[in-house]
């Protein structure tokens, strides 16, 4: 074994097994080379010194205040995270509730619009703004029948077509039999039915014409 080889392997003498051929070679070299023997001795002294220095702090550990600070930080952090999470959940819940409310409101609004005005409601429209047809007057002695066509007004007996310019449409609910009082022919079997009727009311407050708006059962 040369000195270079000894420096590479021999200084770790304790890690070489006793039955390893390198072990006997190292021992042989140490006997024959005073320099390497001195180096080995210094090396072992250094090992002992390092061991002693290591032993001085072998049981050193972080002071208890470090653990306290870390646990405090841990609690603060996880409380904050929990609070933030709760706020996020609450926010999403509120948002979802608002969406549901909006959807329900919209559905209700649509439903009510589809059904039209409530049966007892009275819609008034100024005649100047409405799109109404002025029917021709009935021939004398002719039987007048209210049309089910909602777009057409039927002049009542005695009304003059030319006086309907400023008339107002009034929607009323009545029994079908009441149409007889206005001079119309009524089917007796259905006289008790409730119907909605748009009356074209003239300036004098008298109905001039009518149309059947919708039958309510």
């Amino acid at each position, binding site marked *: 074994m040369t000195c270079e080889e000894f420096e590479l392997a021999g200084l770790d003498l304790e890690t070489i097994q006793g039955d390893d051929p390198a072990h006997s070679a190292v021992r042989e070299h140490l006997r024959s080379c005073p320099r390497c023997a001195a180096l080995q001795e210094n090396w072992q002294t250094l090992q002992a010194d*390092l*061991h002693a220095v290591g032993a001085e*702090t072998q*049981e050193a550990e*972080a002071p208890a205040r*470090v653990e306290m600070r870390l646990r405090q930080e*841990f609690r603060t952090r996880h409380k904050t995270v929990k609070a933030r999470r709760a706020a996020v959940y609450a926010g999403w819940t509120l948002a979802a509730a608002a969406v549901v409310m909006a959807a329900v409101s919209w559905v209700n609004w649509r439903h009510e619009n589809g059904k039209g005005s409530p049966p007892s409601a009275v819609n008034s429209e100024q005649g100047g703004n409405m799109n109404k047809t002025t029917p021709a007057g009935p021939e004398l002695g002719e039987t007048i029948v209210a049309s089910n066509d909602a777009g057409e007004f039927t002049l009542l007996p005695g009304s003059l077509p030319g006086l309907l310019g400023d008339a107002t449409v009034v929607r009323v609910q009545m029994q079908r039999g009441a149409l007889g009082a206005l001079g119309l022919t009524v089917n007796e079997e259905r006289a008790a039915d409730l119907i909605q009727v748009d009356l074209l009311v003239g300036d004098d407050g008298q109905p001039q014409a009518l149309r059947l708006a919708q039958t309510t059962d």
Partner: protein
Amino acid sequence: MHIEAQERDDVLLRRSAKGDERAFTELYRRHQAPLYRFALRMSGNVWAAEEIVQDVFMTLIREPKKFDPERGALRSFLYGITRNRVMKHLERAPRELLHEELDEDTVGQRGLGFEALTPAEWAEVRERREQVRAAVLKLPVEFREAVVLCGLEELSYEEAARLLDCPVGTIRSRLHRGRALLLVKLEMLRDTPKRAGASR
């Protein structure tokens, strides 16, 4: 929640990430001492070591997902963070290499045979150890790591290689170089006869 003594680190870390303080405390108690000793021996400063350990575990609190159990043990991961913090500390305060703050509690004297020494011998031993400690702190960082782990902490080459995430051969060669430098710094080669034809 009950903590099993042998509960795996990654399981504890998962529980800790979900807010289980006992799991975190168990992890801390399991790993703080070797990390603190490593930081202390590398920096030579108790305050720095304390700050470094605190910083390491703060990272574990803030970013537990940084640890990937498939890439290695938690201890190696923590050593990695500790090394980085030590490097930063050494860059920031390269001359702050004093062990003067070490008190009697930190520097245990149990079983070191101080009781059998005369005051003069005791002073000599103290001085000698101070020289060795100072020489270790003056080593280049990569050699110092190897000397601290294998010479002071007395880990095997394999354990040190695992912690430093490098091959065993690298540890062996760094330790060899580190020891050689220590011999020079401690002037232990002064009385050694020169090798024929050798140039140092």
